[in-house]
């Protein structure tokens, strides 16, 4: 399993691996927002948590369709399915690799973008906490979507349509944590619920993804 994680991480950072695309997308989308909304800092403060969360969510979505599609195209998914690694473990490792290459950089970049969107100082901790705890759920749920659409030509759009509705609870609680952090009210409750979502998704989604892969490999 460690070998698969190292392979996926090194594939992501090599030429054509797509590492940084999600991050760059996140940066650009967020930086465009003040241009669209206007330079009024009080308006930006109100919308900042939501924009940062939606930006992170869309950035996560960008690299999802490559998760299994590349292994499917070159035949290594079949070989992995006949290897001693259970497909559940393969899906779990893929989700982890996706989070390390997409979600974690977003968490690291969020404070900088918080400044761009005039996020008040007390909101930074909660924004980072909500992204750090919430983005693993995005990767785990996305793994299931990627497994469902593997093997489809132009499956990327279908993947977005399938996965975005499943992202709603994570977005609700994640943005709520960040919003309450900005207001200075109690953000611990939505954060705990967000953590619960992440734990549930990480526990259940590898099994759902493996089941979908088995059907698609037939």
């Amino acid at each position: 399993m460690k070998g698969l994680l190292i392979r996926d991480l090194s594939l992501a950072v090599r030429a054509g691996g797509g590492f940084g695309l999600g991050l760059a997308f996140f940066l650009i989308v967020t930086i465009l927002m003040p241009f669209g909304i206007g330079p009024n800092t009080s308006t930006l403060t109100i919308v900042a948590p939501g924009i940062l969360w939606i930006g992170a969510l869309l950035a996560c979505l960008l690299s999802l369709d490559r998760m299994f599609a590349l292994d499917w195209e070159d035949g290594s998914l079949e070989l992995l399915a006949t290897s001693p690694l259970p497909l559940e473990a393969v899906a779990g490792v893929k989700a982890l690799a996706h989070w390390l290459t997409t979600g974690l950089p977003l968490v690291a970049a969020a404070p900088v973008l918080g400044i761009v969107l005039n996020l008040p100082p007390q909101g930074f901790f909660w924004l980072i906490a909500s992204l750090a705890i919430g983005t693993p759920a995005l990767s785990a749920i996305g793994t299931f979507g990627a497994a469902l659409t593997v093997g489809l030509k132009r499956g990327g759009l279908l993947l977005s349509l399938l996965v975005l509705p499943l992202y709603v609870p994570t977005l609700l609680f994640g943005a709520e944590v960040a919003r309450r952090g900005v207001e200075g009210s109690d953000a611990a409750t939505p954060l705990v619920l967000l953590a619960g979502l992440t734990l549930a998704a990480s526990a259940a989604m590898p099994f759902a993804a493996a089941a979908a892969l088995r059907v698609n490999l037939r």
Partner: protein
Amino acid sequence: MSLSVENLSCTRGGLPVLTGVTFHVDPGEALILRGPNGAGKTTLLRTLAGLAPALFGGIAVSEDSIAYSGHADGLKAQLSVAENLRFWADVFRAPGIDAAVDAFDLGELMDRRAGNLSAGQKRRLSLARMLVTGRAIWCMDEPTVSLDSENVARFAAAVKQHLSNGGLAVIATHIDLGLPEARALDIAPFMASQIETDPSDDPFLAEDTL
């Protein structure tokens, strides 16, 4: 370790392709699958490997003993030859890759990116992967595609070595591999479309016609 297939029916895309396939392979034995294009060689191998479910019938084989190699090479273009092999050695918990490298003469290519290899070199790397799996039963689908005659001989030598170690192999191919002791199985008679269906055998149809 042996492989027994009893009255197996295989499907592809929901349609039965083969029915009533029965054979037995003992350790040290190779079975060559023959048959025209579309006969179901790939489907049979994928069913043996557990990728496709069997419609009917049974495969008697110990768990985790089958190594499968398909039409695709399963290589990562951005990784070097050595990295590709080491990855599979790690997945299959193999002790090392040296024997596999020697068997297919990959020593000089170790640091090359797999994406820069020729089709034949890629195939050799893909076949070397079978050696690092350390599994007893090789299910191989057209393993010699794009290999030159020298490398077909290397492949035959690797299969012989595998058989003499008590392994067994099921290989679908159209060419002569240079394995005189291997048994050939023509799967054309098992093709589902070849089997004549007599309406009177079918109780529902028979009732209709009465």
